[in-house]
């Protein structure tokens, strides 16, 4: 008996001109956690998609415990006991948890006996690492719960090899610890083998047994986690030339208010009040961070600012004028917004990168003249933005939905933070900008947000990552249950106090 659960040998895959994978090999040991690291676009998702038969590799093979196996499609993979959780959710939103779990089975009977399924899944759910309400509609689950559901969905299929593509990108550190801790227990107890893609060194160091690093589609190294340190891994990821530059926060004199939210009330999808009479001013040259546990109204706040949700009361003023998210005002006032989950919120998957980059200005010269599009001008501008923001592959006419998760994020950043033909950026709203980005990209994005601030933009940063908030903000608000419950500055901030307010136990020393 071999102690390998799975082995990929010399796998290559190209997309047009781009070599996404170039003879990459990987050995997954039985009963352990193997981390797969690499920059955005290094080829991590492509490799695991080749392993489960979602893509057919151009060359190379996949062995399952010594025997060569042709895995032609994800159903074959399932029959061989391999399950995968994709980087983007694959749940059916309008169905319940139970329905999603049952429908995930590849070999369904013609008639489903829901009563029986319910009982069987209910019993097995008790032994799963996470408990989920079977009758809840997936629509109403928070990101963390959806991720747990995706994992449980695979575990219920009795997989022996579980592949997770960035399962923690949408989770808070606490949630990530819970999920990864439970999964590690399962590898110890039941011999489950796990291959996990992540951008977070902390998770690799704490939970993984082995690690493989990809760089630009090539195998850059493999090691036991006990034999490496973070610095070594970082160097393996980007080559030896990486350097970290500190953020330059320039001093700015007292400045006018550019974003003024007064008494804003918002309802969530089910008509319940999500935000109650929230007031907030952001001045030019200032980053205001909103910290909080997800699901406390942050998403609704960003959606209202993005024009994706109506407000139920109150007023938003940008540059002193009432703001309703109309296109004209957006351009005139230099209002920019980077919502979370760019593929869902900020891009059209089947349109090309060049088109997606033109969303802000497609109806202006030079992108259109007299109502007719000038696609040539769009392509030229896109080519520049792609170089500037290092989007890979550098082809403007690839549909944006084909890009790796991190590259989609970069493309949208290029649209909102990039070239503006001399128009000022007055307001910038950013939500969780670094979900799914590698560490060099995170540093670069933070640099760009800071640069926007230094250039006089009023920046509202909504993030679940407290470290990010502490690093970037000039002022910090904590949001809980739809209200701003506490205000502080990074200098005065005490993590324990912030944590208490985030959890909704502000106590007597309420500020508001």
């Amino acid at each position: 008996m071999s102690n390998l659960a799975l082995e990929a040998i010399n796998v290559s895959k190209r997309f047009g001109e781009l070599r996404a994978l170039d003879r990459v090999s990987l050995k997954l040991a039985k009963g352990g956690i193997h981390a797969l690291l690499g920059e955005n676009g290094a080829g991590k998702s492509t490799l695991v998609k080749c392993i489960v038969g979602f893509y057919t590799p151009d060359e190379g093979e996949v062995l399952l415990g010594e025997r060569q196996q042709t895995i032609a499609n994800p159903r074959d993979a399932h029959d061989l006991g391999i399950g995968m959780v994709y980087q983007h959710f694959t749940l059916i939103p309008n169905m319940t948890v139970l329905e999603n779990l049952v429908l995930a089975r590849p070999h369904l009977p013609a008639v489903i006996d829901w009563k029986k399924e319910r009982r069987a899944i209910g019993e097995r759910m008790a032994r799963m690492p996470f408990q989920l309400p079977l009758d809840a509609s997936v629509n109403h689950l928070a990101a963390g719960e959806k991720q747990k559901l995706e994992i449980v969905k695979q575990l219920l299929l009795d997989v022996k090899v579980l592949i997770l593509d960035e399962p923690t990108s949408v989770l808070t550190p606490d949630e990530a610890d819970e999920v990864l801790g439970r999964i590690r227990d399962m590898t110890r107890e039941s011999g489950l083998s796990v291959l996990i893609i992540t951008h977070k060194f902390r998770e690799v160091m704490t939970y993984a047994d082995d690690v493989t690093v990809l760089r630009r589609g090539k195998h850059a190294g493999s090691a036991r986690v006990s034999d490496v340190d973070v610095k070594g891994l970082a160097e393996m990821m980007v080559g030896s030339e990486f350097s970290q530059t500190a953020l330059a926060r320039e001093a700015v004199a007292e400045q006018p208010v550019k974003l003024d939210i007064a008494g804003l009330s918002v309802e969530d999808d089910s008509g319940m009040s999500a935000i109650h009479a929230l007031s907030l001013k952001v001045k030019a040259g200032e980053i205001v961070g909103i910290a909080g546990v997800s699901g406390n109204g942050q998403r609704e706040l960003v959606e209202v600012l993005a024009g994706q949700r109506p407000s139920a009361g109150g007023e938003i003023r940008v540059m002193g004028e009432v703001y309703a998210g109309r296109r004209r005002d957006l351009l005139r006032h230099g209002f920019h917004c980077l919502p979370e989950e760019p593929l869902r919120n900020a891009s059209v998957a089947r349109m090309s990168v060049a088109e997606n980059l033109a969303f802000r200005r497609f109806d202006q010269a030079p992108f259109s003249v007299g109502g007719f599009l000038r696609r040539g001008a769009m392509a030229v501008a896109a080519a520049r933005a792609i170089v500037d923001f290092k989007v890979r592959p550098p082809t403007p006419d690839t549909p944006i939905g084909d890009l790796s998760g991190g590259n989609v994020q970069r493309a949208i950043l290029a649209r909102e933070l990039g070239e503006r033909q001399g128009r000022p950026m007055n307001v910038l709203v950013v939500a969780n900008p670094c979900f799914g980005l590698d560490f060099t990209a995170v540093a670069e994005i933070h640099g760009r947000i800071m640069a926007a601030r230094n250039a006089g933009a009023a920046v509202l940063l909504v993030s679940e990552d407290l470290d990010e908030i502490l690093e970037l903000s000039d002022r910090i608000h904590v949001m809980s249950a739809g209200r701003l419950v506490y205000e502080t500055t990074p200098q005065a901030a005490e993590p324990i106090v912030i944590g208490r307010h985030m959890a909704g136990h502000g106590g007597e020393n309420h500020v508001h």
Partner: protein
Amino acid sequence: MAFAPFLIPLTALALSLLLFGGFVSLAGANALEVYHSIYRGAFGTWFSWQNTLVSAAPLMLTALCTALPARLGLIVIGGEGAVVLGGLAAALTGLALIEANPWVALFGMALAAMLAGGLLIGLVGWLRHSRNVNETISSLLFNYISIAILSFLVIGVLRDPETLNKPSTHHIGETHMLGALGESSIHWGFGFGLIACLLLWILYKRTVFGFAVDMVGGNARAARLSGLPVGRIVFLVCLMGGAAAGLAGMVEVAAVHGRANTSLNAGYGYEGILIAFAARHHPLAIVPMAILFGGIRAAGSLMQRDHDLPDATSLVLQGMIFILLLASEAVFAHLARKRGGAA
């Protein structure tokens, strides 16, 4: 693959002809002879070509009624209702302008028909956007309502008492009829259809409006983020689709019947749905598809007469083409994904 757009429909077409041959053999006819009849009835002679193109004219326009909203991800099947209301509005306007100059009358009829059809489908879009009413169901119901309105009026107040067998409105006057193209029997409706398909293709492909439609159809959240008026765009696109189908109704009245009656409800709207899907909602691809389906329509009676086949036989052929086209598209998309290329 550059040739895929042609390969897919051609393969599907060949397969459906084979399948159809099997079907007519079972029905006791000689497949090869049936093929020959279809060819003769549809494309064999100048006379049959004219019949084919006359049938294709309203089909192009009704197909647009489904194809335009499809870019927004809406499945609108209200072409039949828009044809009926458009025809009715055209006839009423024609009667009101019976003393006017023919050009003025024709222009007025076209405008009224487009407005009637456009508002009907526009209402479908508005209900969808602001009341979340399913557009497929509402447009289907509007078909029945429109047909009922037509019957009610032509049997009742609008009826010309001289029309005994088929209750109709009064005639709009021979001098006010829409003429033919040159020496042929092909009327101007075919020209309208061609021009509409061409213009809307340019609109979708080349203009700022088409770009905005792609954004809304691809991801309404992203469109809102960019400040687009999503509701207005949904309404306008539905309005244009309905206007095209309404114009088909005007063509039927002004070029064929001279009156509004239940002949307006001849299934052009429903057939347009098939054509739109078969053409993958591409305005230019609608033209050949409409001609193909028009040909099958034109050859229907010949098949019936020469081979003693039931008159639903041409519907069977249409159905086979439709299903195989959609199926082959799914197969090709799957293959494209495996290769990792753009589907």
